[in-house]
């Protein structure tokens, strides 16, 4: 049986443990090289650091996030939507505070897909002084098979 919808809905608004994320110069070089950008290890960070930093600093692994909503990677979760909203460009070498929570839960049923849940979560990256630098909003789709 899939996780009860009421249990899932009870997660909305509860904060993740949170943490910090440092944009390590060597790691930034390797990542930008891996996805075909100009590899750099100083200066302004690639916009994808908002996404990666948010996930890395939220205080849960992706597997733990899946477990929180009653799923595993073996269930075949899929990306739904992603928004990267950058208020101040991130800097290579800088450290950011990361916080966030599950923002929305929606259970649907499709003729072919069966029952599935769409879980949305929002993560913020802040400067050490508290100023908001960037926001990563994401949704995962979790198939719910009996």
């Amino acid at each position, binding site marked *: 049986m899939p996780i009860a919808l009421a249990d899932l809905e009870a997660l909305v608004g509860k904060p993740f443990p949170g943490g910090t994320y440092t944009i390590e110069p060597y*790691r930034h070089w*390797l*990542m930008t*090289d*891996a*996805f*075909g*950008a*100009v590899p*750099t290890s100083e*200066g*302004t*960070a*690639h*916009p*994808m650091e908002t*996404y*990666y930093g948010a*996930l*890395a600093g939220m205080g849960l*692994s*992706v*597997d733990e996030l899946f477990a929180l909503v009653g799923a595993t*990677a073996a269930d*075949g979760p*899929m*990306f*739904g*939507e*992603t*928004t*990267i*909203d*950058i208020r101040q*460009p991130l800097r290579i070498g800088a450290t950011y505070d990361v916080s966030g929570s599950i923002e929305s839960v929606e259970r649907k049923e499709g003729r072919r897909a069966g029952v599935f849940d769409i879980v949305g979560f929002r993560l913020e990256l802040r400067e050490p002084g508290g100023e908001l630098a960037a926001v990563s909003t994401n949704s995962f789709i979790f198939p719910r098979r009996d």
Partner: protein
Amino acid sequence: MDIELGVEIPAFVVDVADERMKTVAALLNDSNPIHWDVESVRRLGMGDRPVNQGPNNLAYVANALIAWAGGDPGAVRRLQVRFLGNVFGGERVTARGVVTGVRREGGVALADLDVWLERAEDDRVLDGTATVVVG
């Protein structure tokens, strides 16, 4: 930068390489074997090539926008996309965008765009919108 509505940004073409997926998996602690283990992909009935990480596909669109903005990664202010399908190792994909609006906000000029990543003209794997600083 003078920008006309409807202008297409230069295409960003990527030949998706298996080795790069392995680098990303290692850097991101991504334990999903579909990104490097072909046997796992076969067992799931997803074919016989590794599956590219979804965020990589988004990164290609960001790369196209950065190049269009003159190479400044800080020019990309917003990206919102839906993931529509998987990209596999060995495939060629192209990131594209078209300007839908130009405005001033907070003393800077911003361009709004429709963006997407495609295998072919009628085969999009990701689409959405973006906002880029243009002056």
